[in-house]
């Protein structure tokens, strides 16, 4: 776990980092990358966002090469999966050992995790004890769950939160990391560098299906009313 494994030519280790907005994804990645840069790894970052975002500046400031993908009106996770292979090829062409993608984390129904690619979910302790249940696939299908902001909540709440996370995903490693000081990032770094090396994602599969954009609103409709609702529409049951 403590040695960097030899990276065969023209392959790259990929880590997908997902988590709700402001949960500490960028903070985790910056601290983890700092540990790994120290160990001599070459690291690239891909940041997926919806409309705008300043995360790429934080990565640049840390000396990490970064590419930004803006999903615009699409679900950012749908946008992610359509573009991640190109990102991998960019990473390989740049000669990185490790490529880390940060998701926008706005869609609780979708999850960017891919079978055979190391999957990380970041949640913060402030988000409430029910969050582990609510955020579904991106937590349930992760290999590593990182819990941030433990420095400002009580020990008891951290323990309850960890327990809830384990209930939602008994298989993952669960580590606390302080996004401000980086405490705990040594252990997350140990996980990142053992991510499987890949040369292409073609033919690989998502861990969880993403719902298709099937209704008229997915296609840009803004009017409300039955005439505007075309396609796969689900209605609430009031009985």
């Amino acid at each position: 776990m403590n040695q960097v494994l030899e990276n065969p030519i023209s392959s790259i280790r990929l880590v997908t980092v997902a988590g709700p907005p402001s949960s500490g994804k960028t903070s985790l990645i910056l601290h983890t990358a700092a540990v790994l840069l120290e160990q001599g790894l070459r690291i690239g970052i891909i940041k997926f966002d919806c409309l705008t975002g300043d995360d790429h500046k934080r990565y640049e400031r840390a000396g990490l090469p970064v590419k930004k993908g803006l999903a615009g009106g699409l679900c950012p996770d749908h946008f992610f999966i359509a573009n991640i292979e190109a990102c991998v090829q960019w990473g390989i062409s740049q000669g990185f050992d490790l490529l880390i993608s940060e998701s926008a984390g706005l869609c609780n129904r979708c999850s960017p995790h891919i079978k055979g690619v190391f999957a990380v979910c970041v949640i913060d302790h402030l988000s409430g004890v029910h969050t582990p249940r609510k955020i579904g696939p991106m937590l349930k299908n992760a290999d590593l769950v990182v819990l941030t902001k433990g420095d400002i909540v009580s020990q008891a709440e951290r323990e309850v939160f960890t327990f809830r996370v384990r209930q939602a995903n008994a298989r993952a490693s669960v580590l606390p990391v302080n996004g401000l000081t980086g405490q705990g990032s040594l252990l997350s770094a140990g996980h990142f560098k053992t991510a499987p090396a890949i040369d292409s994602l073609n033919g690989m599969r998502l861990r969880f299906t993403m719902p298709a954009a099937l209704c008229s609103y997915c296609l840009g409709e803004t009017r409300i009313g039955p005439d505007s609702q075309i396609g796969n529409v689900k209605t609430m049951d009031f009985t």
Partner: protein
Amino acid sequence: MGKVIEKAGVDPGLLTLGIDTLLEKYPYLTDFFSALGIDPFPGQKTLSMLIESLSPDHLSQFNLDHHALSAQVLEFIAKMEQCRYKIHGRMDHLVIGAGFDKDGCPEAMGITLFPGEVVSVVGPTGSGKSQLLSDIECLAQGDTPSGRNVLPDGKTPDARSRFSGEFRLVAQLSQNMNFVMDLTVEAFLHMHAESRLIDNIPGKIEQIYQSAVMLAGEPFSLDTAITSLSGGQSRALMIADVAYLSASPVVLIDEIENAGIDRVKAVSLLLNKEKIVLIATHDPLLALSCDRRIVIKNGGIADVVKTLEAEKKSAACLAGLDKKLGLLRERVRKGKHLVFDQNFFNSN
């Protein structure tokens, strides 16, 4: 890592047991099922019958089929039981092997800590107290900036358990920590006790509540929302909770001197629970209530000072002084005047 399904402890025999038997033995299954929108109404069904009765449509919402769900339930039970087992594991001592200071010079010494011992960590701000506490938390193996080795029972911890975060050696309390959950004291303690998989939850709640009130000095009720407790009450509840409910054998306390609680009682409560207690502090009363003091300088342990018998006597006077200050604080709280002279401190 992670992709390998942990098979240890998985018992397929559980599938043939009745649901009511299982729910009684593994109460946390209720939560597991409700998270999946499954009502495990107790009846004559076995676990495998329950799983088979679920519609594929329902399961597909969770990206599961019958087979995957069976595997997941068994894995879940195995993992939870593993946690329960770990919790009962006990540590005899904790070795902190010397590393290096900020200039790369070898530290003067390491230290071995024992349960039921309280040790303070002293040194100027920025001297490296946090690095020591952080080394202990992540079970440093010569791979942190200090190069220290932290060895439970003197042994190198298993890398798998270190990296999986399964075994949390350390419970932490600091001035910055607050309660954030929207719960009453009682509901909160109940939730914590439940997550620790312990028996006799109401008894535990009562114990913690009583100790917390004793430490806080100002009473509060079980119906109080935890977010509306005063600073002192929150601190008191956190300490009592760590003493009775935390699984971690080591407790790190960062600066509780201004918390408005009975610090000496707080420390002795933790000690009675056979924990190793480390306190980063500048407070003389707290420092003297410790058995030893780790002195940090320039990132390294410069010395370990044993508290002298003579110091214990001085601590007694200090405690008297502290009590007097407490009386004055009480008068401020009640809106009274504070007129006193030297005699106030000398009298008993």
